[in-house]
C-alpha cells in the first residue's frame, strides 16, 4: 500500500543553522498532493506547506519544500532555524480522488540556543 516515510524521529539543530527534514513516499497514484503539517506543543496539527506540482518550490513561514516525483521526495528545509520552530512535523500524502491523508510518523525538531 501507499506510505510516507520520515526517516528521523528526532532532529536537533542549533539556532541559526540550516535544517532539513526528510520525507519520501511510495504510491501507485499519478495525481497526488503533499503536505507538511506542524504541531506545536499541546496544540493541534496545522498545515505548513502544500504542493501538487513536480519540481516547484513551495514556501511558507521561512520553510520551503520541493516535490520531486523522480526521487519520490518532499523534504522540508529552512536556511536558519529559530527556537520557535521547535515542534513535531508531519509529512502527508493525499492520493488523487481520495479524501484521506497518509501521514508519516513525524519528526520532532528541537532547536537549541
Amino acid at each position, binding site marked *: 500500500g501507499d506510505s510516507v516515510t520520515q526517516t528521523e524521529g528526532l532532529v536537533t539543530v542549533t539556532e541559526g543553522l540550516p535544517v532539513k527534514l526528510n520525507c519520501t513516499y511510495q504510491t501507485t497514484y499519478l495525481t497526488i*498532493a503533499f503536505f507538511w503539517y506542524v504541531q506545536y506543543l499541546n496544540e*493541534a*496539527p496545522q*498545515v505548513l506547506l502544500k*504542493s501538487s506540482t513536480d519540481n516547484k518550490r513551495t514556501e511558507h513561514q521561512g520553510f520551503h519544500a520541493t516535490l520531486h516525483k523522480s526521487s519520490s521526495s518532499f523534504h522540508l528545509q529552512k536556511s536558519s532555524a529559530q527556537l520557535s520552530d521547535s515542534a513535531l512535523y508531519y509529512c502527508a500524502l493525499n492520493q488523487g480522488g481520495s*479524501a*484521506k*491523508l497518509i501521514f508519516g510518523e513525524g519528526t520532532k525538531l528541537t532547536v537549541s540556543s
Partner: protein
Amino acid sequence: EAAVTQSPRNKVAVTGGKVTLSCNQTNNHNNMYWYRQDTGHGLRLIHYSYGAGSTEKGDIPDGYKASRPSQENFSLILELATPSQTSVYFCASGQDWGGGDTQYFGPGTRLLVL
C-alpha cells in the same frame, strides 16, 4: 481561518463504559475525520465522512463507531471503552483546493480510560 471545535477537551472514563467525543465545524466542509495520536505512531485515521449521513472506516476502526448527523457535526463513539483507547483524539474537517484535501484540525480531546 477554519474553525473546528471538540468536546470534551479532557475525559476520564471507566473500562467498559460508553464514551462519545463530539466535533463541530463551522466552515461548511464536506469531509470530516477522526484521528488518534500516540507516541511512536503519529496520527492514525479512525473514521471519516464525506458528508451528512456518511461514515467510512479509516485505518484503525476496530472498537470505534462514528456518526455524522449533519454537515457540521461528527461524533466518535466508543461503545465499550478499553485502556488501550487511552489517547489524544483529533477531529479535522477537509476542503479540496483542487490539488488535494487540506485538513484543519480541532484542539484535541485527551481521553484516559481507567
